[in-house]
C-alpha cells in the first residue's frame, strides 16, 4: 500500500488550511501590487503605455528580488514547522510511506504555492491597473502583451527560484527552528544586492529568480532559469533519499 505523491501533496495542502501560510500567500503579492500603486500615485509620470511597463517591471523586480525569496523562506519554514511544532514526524514516519515521499510532497506544495502567489501577483497587478485605467484618466493604459509579460516574468521567476526552494525546504525540514532558515533567507537577499549585478551571480542561487526575470540580457535570464530548474531537478531527489537522515541530523 503506497499512497501516490498526489495524495501526499493534497494532504500537505490540507495541513495548511487555516494557517499562516495561506494568509501570507495572499498578502505577499497583494502588498507588492499596493506598493507599486502607491509608488505611481506619489509620482504619476503620465498615462503612457511605457509608464505601465515600467510599473510592471518595478512590481516584478520587487517581487523577484525581495518578496519571492523571503516568502520561499517563510513558507518552507511554515510547511515544515507544522511537523516540528507537534513532532508530527513520528506520526508521518510511522505510516507505510518512505520519508522521502513526504519530503517531495512538501516540496511540491511549496513549489505550487509559490507559483500560485506569483501568478496571483500577475493577475492582481493586471486587474488593478486595468480597473484604475478605466476609472482614472491619469492611469496608464495596458499595452498589448502586458499580461503575457507579467505571466512570462512570473514563470521565469519561479523557474529561477526552484533551487532556492529546494535549499530552504531542506533547511526547514532538517532544523526545528524558524530562525536559522529565515536568517539565511534575509542574509541571502542582502547578498543579492551586492552580487546580483556582478559576474559572480551564478554562484548565488538567490540571484537566479531575479536575473531570470531581467529582460536586459535574455542570455543571462535563460541561464538563470536553466540553473534554477536543473539544479532543483538534481538536488530534490538526492535530498529526498536522505530525508530520514536529515531529520535525525536536526534532532
Amino acid at each position, binding site marked *: 500500500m503506497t499512497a501516490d505523491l498526489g495524495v501526499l501533496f493534497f494532504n500537505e495542502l490540507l495541513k495548511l488550511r487555516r494557517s499562516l501560510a495561506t494568509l501570507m500567500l495572499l498578502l505577499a503579492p497583494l502588498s507588492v501590487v499596493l506598493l507599486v500603486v502607491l509608488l505611481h500615485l506619489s509620482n504619476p509620470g503620465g498615462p503612457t503605455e511605457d509608464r505601465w511597463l515600467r510599473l510592471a517591471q518595478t512590481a516584478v523586480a520587487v517581487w523577484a528580488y525581495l518578496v519571492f525569496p523571503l516568502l520561499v523562506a517563510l513558507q518552507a519554514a511554515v510547511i515544515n514547522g507544522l511537523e516540528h511544532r507537534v513532532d508530527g514526524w*513520528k506520526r508521518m*514516519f*510511522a505510516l*507505510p510511506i518512505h520519508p522521502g515521499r513526504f519530503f517531495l510532497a512538501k516540496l511540491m506544495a511549496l513549489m505550487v504555492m509559490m507559483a500560485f502567489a506569483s501568478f496571483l501577483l500577475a493577475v492582481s497587478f493586471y486587474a488593478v491597473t486595468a480597473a484604475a485605467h478605466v476609472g482614472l484618466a491619469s492611469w496608464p493604459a495596458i499595452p498589448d502583451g502586458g499580461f503575457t509579460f507579467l505571466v512570462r516574468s512570473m514563470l521565469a521567476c519561479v523557474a529561477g527560484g526552484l533551487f532556492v526552494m529546494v535549499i530552504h525546504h531542506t533547511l526547514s525540514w532538517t532544523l526545528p527552528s524558524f530562525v536559522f532558515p529565515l536568517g539565511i533567507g534575509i542574509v541571502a537577499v542582502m547578498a543579492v544586492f551586492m552580487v546580483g549585478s556582478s559576474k559572480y551571480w551564478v554562484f548565488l542561487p538567490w540571484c537566479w529568480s531575479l536575473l531570470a526575470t531581467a529582460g536586459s540580457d535574455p542570455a543571462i535570464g535563460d541561464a538563470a532559469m536553466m540553473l534554477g530548474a536543473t539544479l532543483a531537478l538534481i538536488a530534490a531527489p538526492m535530498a529526498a533519499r536522505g530525508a530520514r537522515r536529515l531529520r535525525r541530523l536536526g534532532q
Partner: protein
Amino acid sequence: MTAVDVRGLRKSFHGREVLRGFDLNITVGTVFALLGRNGAGKSTTLRLLLGLLTADGGEIRLSGQQMPRDRHSILANVGSMIESPSLYENLTARENLAIDARVRGLEARAVSEALEIVELADDTQPVREFSLGMKQRLSLALAVVGRPSILILDEPTNGLDPMGIADMRRLLRDLPARLNTTVLLSTHILAEAAQVATDLAILEAGELCYSGSLEALRRRQRRRLRLVSSDAAKLESQLLAWNLEVRNFCVPVDDETSAAHLIRRLVEHGVPLHHAALEEPSLEEIYFEMIGIAA
C-alpha cells in the same frame, strides 16, 4: 499465533546501552503492557518496533514480517500513538484523520468509524480548542483508523485527569474484541497494567525482568504468613533460628498446609501467637521485588 516477536533487541545512544538484548513474545488478541520506570527503555522499544529507530542488534518481527526489511507492509497493518499527541491543531478531528486515512488508502467511512470507536464528536471545532482528553482520544482514533491488526500505544493515559484515564482504560480494554487487534501499550503505572492488560512484561534498565500473563506473575510470587505475637523478640529469634526469610514478621509460604505446619511448630516451641493470616502479595510488591532482583 504471535503478533510481536523480538529476539536479542539491543540499542545504545551515545555509547549508553538502553536496551541490553531482550526477547519478547506477544500473542495475537492480547492487551500486552510493557511496564517499567521512566528511562527503562519502553519508548525506545516501541520506536524500534515502528521502525522509527534502528536497532543495534537483534531481530524484530511483527505478524511474521521482519522490521525494518518489510517496514512498509508491517506499518500498513500497525496503528500507533507515540507519547504526546501529534495533531495538526488548525484542523478538525475529521481532517486530521483524513490525512492518515488517505495515506493508508482508506475511504471516508473509516474516518467516521474511528471517531465512533473513540466516542469523539464529528464537528467543525479545530483541534486547538480540544481538551487534552479529547486530543488523546483523537490520537487513539488515528491509531485505530483502518482497523490495524496491531496497535502500539506509548503511555496512552499520560497527562489525563482521573476521568480521562478511566475512559481511556475502558476504551483500551474493549479494543481487542471490537477491532480484532493486538494491543501493545507501555506504561509506568502498575495499576494501569493490572486493569487493562492480560499479559505484561517488566522492563528495567534495558532488561526484561518478566514476561507472561498477569495471573502467572501473581502465582509466581509466594504467599506470606503474617504473624503477631505478644513476644515479638521470641518470635523473631525462633524464625531466624530456623533460617526462615523474615520481613516485618511475614514469612513466605507455599500454601495453607505449610502455613499451618509453621504455626503448629511455633506453638510447640512456646511462641505466644495472637494472630496469623495468609496474605497475597500485591502486584506492586511483586513489581518492586522484580525490579529489586534485576537491579
